[in-house]
């Protein structure tokens, strides 16, 4: 029995329409409505709504605003590369584009408050105005006074205005160290399986019965629910795979009621989808194309990660190997590996205590350029002149993100690098040079 939305300030009809749109979010919506109060009431200055990705935060807020025809503006913070842009969008949404001319070019919150005051006194409103800031977590990276300013905007501009923050992160992570006005916090929990089913069933195909679609969703959730609870992703997958599900129906082999046969037909298919299209190894277009021709040729589509092979110039390969060795071998062991008469070093008494853990578990360590070149010259079999192109190869390896540069001071004299490739990758490279890299790695001694 769905909860009936009840509120004094709005007509039954509007609330009914609203309730239809927000499946499974009635509780949150009625709380929110209660918080907002009647249109002409002063509302609590700031409301903070958080919940996971695709849990209906923006949808519910937008629906309430649209259905009840409240004056509002929605701004996505990710779009606002500067605070000025954010203010501009807010002012434009509430007062029209002419009003933005009042804002100076690089406006601060002070300018915004001043302009807002001016505008609101020109156009007084008896209804509460709402400013909805989507992806509010990005506000934290902008100017420090922005978040506290918006939290108590009502007080600052002396107008009936409420700011609603939508975020995927809990409020605790927002609170600035200097303290601020505490908003009302509202949580949107994740949808459970039943709710997901209910929502997904909503976009049923017009040419098939809703029951059929519902059973399809049931099967699909059975496969995907354990790995993915993201509503958006599930809808995407449902849309991609429904046509395959209906194929036996179209051929007239199976009746709509024969769920078991339908299940048998689609299940291996969905499993495959989980490995490819869900991970975006294969794009959705390719997936659809493959479904079309699958009967004729079962040529396996290679995913994105199948192409891991990278072709590199000869010396770049050696530079990368040298960098890998420098990153994963302790510097003291270089003598052992690269000197002809190194004497015998046994691993057990040679090791220091902290080195007993595998270097591969600890990750790459930074090394100076000198060491890289020293190892490079000893692993390359023929003599290499220290030409400019050897050095430029190092920097091009950095731009290709196969090496990373660490530290910022002393970039000219003694730059330091880290090797950013995996063991598998370097082994593949070493194999093309017939260079036995494992023999040179301290971990595998």
């Amino acid at each position, binding site marked *: 029995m769905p909860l009936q939305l009840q509120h004094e300030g709005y007509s039954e009809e509007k609330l009914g329409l609203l309730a239809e749109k927000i499946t499974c979010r009635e509780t949150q919506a009625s709380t929110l409505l209660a918080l907002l109060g009647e249109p002409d009431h002063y509302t609590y200055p700031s409301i903070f709504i958080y919940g996971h990705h695709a849990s209906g935060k923006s949808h519910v807020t937008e629906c309430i605003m649209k259905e009840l025809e409240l004056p509002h503006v929605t701004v996505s913070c*990710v779009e606002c590369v500067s605070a000025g842009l954010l203010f501009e969008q807010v002012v434009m949404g509430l007062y029209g584009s002419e009003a933005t001319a009042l804002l100076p070019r*690089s406006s601060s919150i002070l300018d915004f408050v001043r302009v807002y005051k001016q505008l609101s006194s020109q156009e007084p409103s008896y209804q509460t105005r709402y400013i909805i800031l989507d992806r509010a977590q990005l506000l934290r990276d902008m100017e420090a006074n922005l978040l506290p300013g918006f939290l108590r905007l009502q007080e600052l501009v002396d107008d009936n205005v409420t700011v609603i923050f939508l975020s995927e992160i809990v409020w605790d992570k927002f609170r600035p160290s200097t303290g601020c006005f505490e908003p009302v916090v509202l949580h949107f929990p994740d949808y459970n399986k039943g709710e997901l089913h209910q929502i997904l069933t909503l976009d049923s195909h017009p040419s098939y019965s809703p029951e059929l679609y519902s059973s399809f969703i049931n099967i699909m959730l059975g496969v995907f629910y354990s790995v993915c609870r993201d509503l958006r992703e599930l809808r995407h997958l449902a849309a991609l795979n429904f046509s395959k599900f209906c194929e036996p129906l179209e051929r007239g082999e199976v009746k709509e009621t024969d769920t078991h046969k339908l299940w048998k037909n689609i299940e291996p298919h969905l499993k495959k989808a989980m490995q490819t299209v869900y991970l975006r190894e294969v*794009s*959705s277009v390719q997936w659809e194309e493959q479904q079309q021709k699958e009967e004729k040729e079962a040529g396996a589509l290679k995913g994105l990660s199948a*192409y*891991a092979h990278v072709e*590199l110039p*000869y010396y770049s390969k050696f530079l990368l190997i040298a960098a890998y060795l420098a990153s994963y071998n302790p510097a003291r062991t270089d003598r052992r590996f690269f000197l002809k008469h190194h004497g015998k070093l046994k691993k057990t008494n040679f090791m220091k205590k902290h080195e007993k853990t595998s270097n591969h578990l600890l990750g790459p360590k930074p090394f100076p350029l000198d060491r890289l070149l020293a190892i490079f010259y000893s692993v390359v079999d023929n003599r290499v002149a220290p030409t400019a192109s050897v050095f430029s190869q190092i920097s091009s390896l950095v731009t290709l993100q196969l090496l990373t540069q660490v530290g910022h001071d002393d970039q000219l004299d003694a730059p330091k690098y880290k090797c950013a490739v995996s063991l598998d990758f370097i082994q593949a490279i070493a194999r093309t040079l017939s260079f036995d890299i494992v023999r040179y790695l301290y971990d595998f001694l």
Partner: protein
Amino acid sequence: MRASEIPTAALVLGVNVPDHDVTFQGLSELLQQSVTPFVVSVQAKECTALKHLMQKVLERIMGVDVPLNEEDEGQSGSCSVPGNRKRARCSLSSLCEWYQMAVKKFAARSPGKKCSSLGKDVLPYPPVVIIFKDLEAFSPRVLQDFILICSRYIQQLPLMFIFGIATSPSTIQHMLPHSVSSLLCIELFQSLSCTQHLATVIDQLVLTPKFPFKLTGKVLQVLVSIFLYHDFSVRNFIKGLQLALVEHFHSQPLSVLCCCKKEAVDHAQQFIHQDVERVRQLPSFMRYVENQDAEEQVKLLTNDDHVKEVCQKLIKNLRKYHKNYHPVLRCLHSLTSSLPKYPLGKQVRELHISCLEKNIWETEEYNTAMQLLRMLAKDELVAALQNCADLLRPAKSEKMKEALQQLEDYITKFDKLDQLSSEDLMEEEVTSPGKDLQKKTDLFQLQKTLLEMRESRRSKKMTPFEVLRNQVLDIVDQLVRTYLIPPETQPMNEVCYYSSSGVLRRHLNATPRTSIQTALSHPYYYLQHEGLQTDTGSISNTAPDICVVYKLHLECGRLINLFDWLEAYCTVVSAAEGKDPDSPDYGKVDELKHARFIQAVSELEFVGFVKSTKQKTDHVARLTWGGC
């Protein structure tokens, strides 16, 4: 559902980043001609922050200035003037508005002109294509935010991305989390490998008789090895080729003859005495003269007009040589490139280089290749010969036509062999001793029979196929011996061949470190001042201060005591001033020397040999190792 994904092409181009510019240029031109007028490309270095990326995209699509707020703070005095409505806001919503306008304009214009400039199948809503030239170099954060913003507008603005990837497509997964990459509909495209590009370039520019300018084996080797060892860049290879061309025409006066036949003959006709002398100096010409009889020799050395005539003849010969060389080279390559282990190289350039350097038929590899060819089965051999014939067909010279005729004759003979072969088979079965092998169980007997079999096989009469095979391969061998002779044996080859590989290597593969070290340890090399000339290893007292300081610092360890260094320096400099070693102020530090020393040390620091250290205050650290 799919409509909300942004179509994305992941374009894997390989690590030869310098070549990508040309590819992207071509791609965006092609897109502009046939798909959409809205194509924009961005590079990572201009997009360090999201706002810069946004600004660049908007500016380049809309063709107007999109000021960022911070940057025009200086002129913000005019901001209250209502006239500044023209300035576009730096956000995608303004792009959306602009796009709607542009599409309307576009639609209004196109019925009249029927899209003359664009292809027929231009959509009513042409997509906006954004090319990210170097995906790896973009900051993941910027890219993620940009994609998030774009996906909000995808319904109103048909955006498309092209990612230029240098390494492997899995970079996308490293850079973008699932929540972002799920907004993209990525399809993979792979370009040809750069070695294939190089093969095409060499094929069109080097392995052709079309151009008179040629490279010797060493020069080509330098260019190819820079490509393979260092950068994989076809563009740099072409630059190297251009440099060789310029160098050749600059350094060799006789390169006036390096042009098309008619002009070359004309130029040779107009030679003055000096030019003729130059011709006589050419090593290849001298060798040619030596091989003539005495009378001719005298004529060549004294009579300028005669030399001119001979010159013309030799130039023509050289052209003929090239006309025959290239088809035969390709033939030989097509025959040997399918052999196991590639005895003569996989690529035609490898074969070319070895042919340029020595007599190919004297090499061991050639003999192995020939032996392998003599073992080919009939269908393989005929296919290979057919290939050869196809390669020889476009060649125009008489000799090549003859060779082609011979080959074709043999191919028909091989075909005729089919009718005979059935009889041969019968014959062979009779003589085949394999059958009695099964009866023998005694080891000794078995060995004996096997030996006999081998003997008999050796002496066995060759089948007609084998006879033919040997004949045709003898012809090929003859072709190789006649036409693939190294160009150095040709008189006047210096006119066309650029040979100074050292110069090219110095220019293309510079060694700054070595140059600096040479300058510091042998100042004479660059300064050419008599007083600086010394024996190897030592350095003159009168050398520039920095050289003296450098020489002294080589004798120190990792940390150098500045005071000791100064004293040593003063001693050396005092010796240079010619002071009496016994006088009391010999080697004493005065202000001038002190200042010179400080300057020299800071110069050395600037060049990167020492740096100040915090370990010991009066010391500097050496940044190079080895030395003394």
